[in-house]
C-alpha cells in the first residue's frame, strides 16, 4: 500500500513537470528575467503542489492553481531585489527556439510586472478577463486597465526602437 502511494507520487511528479513545466518556466522567466530565480519558483511551486496535495475539479483548475501559486511566488521573489534585474538578450537564445522572437521577448520583459503578468495570461495562456480576475484576485476593471496600459507600453517601446 505504502509502496503504491510512493509510486503514485513519483508518477504525479513526472506528470505535472512534463505537463506544466514549460508553461510555468516561461511565465516565471518573463516575470523574473532571471533563469535561476525562475527555476527556483517552478521548483517551489511543484513542491507546494506535492505538499498541499490540493483537490481539483479538472485539469484547467489544476493549471490555474499552479499559475496562481507561481505568479505569487514570483512577486515575493522580487520583493527584496531593490534593482530590477534583467536577463541579457543573448541569454534568451538558450531558452527560445525562435531567433526572431528575442526582440519581442525583450520588450515584454522590460514591462512592469503587473502589466506583463496580465499580458502573459491573456495573450499567451489564453485566459479571459474574468478568469484572470479570479487568478490574480483583482477586479475585472483592473485587469482591463492593465491590459490596455500594457499594450500601450509595449507598442511604445517597440515604436521607439524602430524609429
Amino acid at each position, binding site marked *: 500500500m505504502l509502496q503504491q502511494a510512493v509510486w503514485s507520487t513519483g508518477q504525479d511528479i513526472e506528470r505535472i513537470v512534463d505537463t506544466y513545466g514549460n508553461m510555468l518556466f516561461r511565465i516565471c522567466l518573463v516575470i523574473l528575467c532571471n533563469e535561476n530565480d525562475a527555476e527556483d519558483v517552478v521548483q517551489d511551486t511543484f*513542491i507546494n503542489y506535492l505538499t498541499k496535495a490540493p483537490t481539483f475539479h479538472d485539469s484547467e483548475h489544476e493549471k490555474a492553481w499552479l499559475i496562481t501559486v507561481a505568479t505569487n511566488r514570483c512577486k515575493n521573489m522580487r520583493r527584496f531585489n531593490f534593482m530590477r534585474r534583467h536577463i541579457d538578450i543573448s541569454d534568451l537564445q538558450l531558452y527560445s527556439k525562435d531567433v526572431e522572437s528575442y526582440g519581442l521577448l525583450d520588450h515584454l520583459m522590460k514591462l512592469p510586472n503587473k502589466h506583463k503578468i496580465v499580458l502573459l495570461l491573456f495573450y499567451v495562456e489564453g485566459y479571459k478577463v474574468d478568469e484572470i480576475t479570479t487568478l490574480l484576485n483583482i477586479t475585472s476593471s483592473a485587469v482591463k486597465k492593465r491590459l490596455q496600459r500594457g499594450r500601450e507600453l509595449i507598442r511604445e517601446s517597440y515604436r521607439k526602437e524602430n524609429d
Partner: protein
Amino acid sequence: MDFEKMKDAVKSIEMPETMKSRVKKNSNILEKEKSVRFNSKKWISVAFAVAVLLLIVIGIPLFDRNGNLVSNFTVTAYASSDDGNQLYTNLSEEKAIFELSTEQRIGVIGSVGGDGANLIFTNVMLNITGEDIDSITYTLSKGKFVEDVTLTAKERANKDWLLSEKIYFISTEPGSDISQGIKEIGNSYTVNYNEQDKYKYTLAIPHDGNDVIVEDMIIKVNVKYTDGNSEQQDIVVTQEPNSISLKLN
C-alpha cells in the same frame, strides 16, 4: 505590434531538459523526506504541548522577564499586498513573517540623493491599539521610516524642492507623467493615537549592498498615556529568506 507574434515568442521558451530533470529529482527527494518525517507519536506530543501552552496563555496573566505585567497596548504590524489586500498581525514574542511587496519600488530609476541605495524598502507599517493612549513615538536603531508620495511632472523636475522635501528616490513608468517618490521621514516620529491612520510610514532597512541585513533592527515603541505615564516595547526586525520577521523583544 503583433501580439500573436509575442505569443509565439513566449511559447517558444522551453524549460531545458536538464532543469526539468533537476526539478523532478528535487521534488522526489523532498516528497520522500516528507513521508519519512511524518511520525504520529511526535505529532501527538506536539499537539499536547500546544494545548498545555494555550491553557497557560489563557489561564494565567502574562508577565515579562522582570515579573511585571506585560504592556497594556498591542502593536499591530500590517502591509498592503499588490492585490490591495492588507495583512495584519498582532506582534508577540513569536516571529511574524512578512513576505511583502516592494514591487512598486523595485523599478526605482532616479536617485536624487541620500543613502537609499543601501536600503531595503518594505511595505510594513505599525499601528497601536490600547486604552487612554495619547501619543506614540517610534524610534529605529537604524534604517529609516519612509513615505510613498505621488509626484507630478513639474514637481519631479524641481530638484531643489525634492531635496527640501527629502524625496530622494523616484520611479516613473514609461510614458507616464505621474511619478512615485519615496520621502524620507527619519529614524523617529511621533503620532497622536487618534491620527494613526493619517501616517502611512513604512520601514526601510539598511543592507550590506547585497540585500543582506547584517544586524537586526530594533524599533522602540514608546506609548504615552493620557495620565502622563508612558510605556515601552521593543520590536526586533530580522531578515528571513525573501521576507522579514518582526517580534516583540
